[in-house]
């Protein structure tokens, strides 16, 4: 995920995120009030929400096979 923070000049910052680098065609954009640091902190929250709400377009993790687990136990 890549992101960009832009000072809008009125005490707000625009956050633009993109998941193209992960092969997912999803971009997001929001606005937060406060300092650039506030915006920086909010990026992770925004990213998490997008991953949750658009989980269906993100690649699912491969399920672990039981045989391999057995090998590790024994």
């Amino acid at each position: 995920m890549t992101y960009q923070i832009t000072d809008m000049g009125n005490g707000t910052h625009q956050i633009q995120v993109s998941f193209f680098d992960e092969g997912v065609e999803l971009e997001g954009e929001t606005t937060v009030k406060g300092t650039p640091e506030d915006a920086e902190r909010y990026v992770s929250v925004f990213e998490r929400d997008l991953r949750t709400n658009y989980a269906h377009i993100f690649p699912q993790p491969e399920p672990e096979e039981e045989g391999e687990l057995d090998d590790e136990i024994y």
Partner: protein
Amino acid sequence: MDRLLREGNPPTGQLASPKPQYKKPGVDEYAPVEGQHGAPFAILKDASGNIVSPATEDKLEQVRQLLTGVATEAKLEQARVLLNTISNKDFATQATLEVVQSELALIKSELDNIKQNQTSGDQKVQLSGTKVVESAPVTGIKTVTSTVAEVFAGSSRKANRSKIVIRNLHQAVAIRIGGSNITDTIGQSLEPGASVEIDFSPSTAVPIYAVSTAGNVSVEVLEV
């Protein structure tokens, strides 16, 4: 006793012939007729006894020119018929025309007002009908934190949205919503479990911000 005037020196052997003469009006007297240019001569006088100057050829030509512009009897008859057709018409008086003029001025003023309202966007209208959904709604879960951030359902504010519904999913913590000037103590409070609906003009993009009063709060968002 009338006696004609006769020549005074007739030819030898002939009786005196009467002279060309005329009888004076009112008396039994005769006077010789005088002539000019081979014809009897006369002087025209008006009722006051003033000598009337005979018209010259130039003056007669002027009269002819004037008479050419005079309507003939046929044209006058046409005019009479035309006047007769409009003689029973109800023509407006000057006072009536002034009333009409005043009313037209009022109408012009009203039209100017309407035109100004239409161009300035101040025209008052009353809409009727049913509000309908014209595009697919967007739903999502958002995390409201102590940072004042815009709240919407999808990856960004839905374009041309007409409504947003926000429901506080937390069981104990309230959030505040409003414009970008809200804080954790200023703004519309949305209590735990409560929801709020906000209508928008689709043509105007208005961001809605939210902030938590304590910790992170999940909210359910619907945009139409």
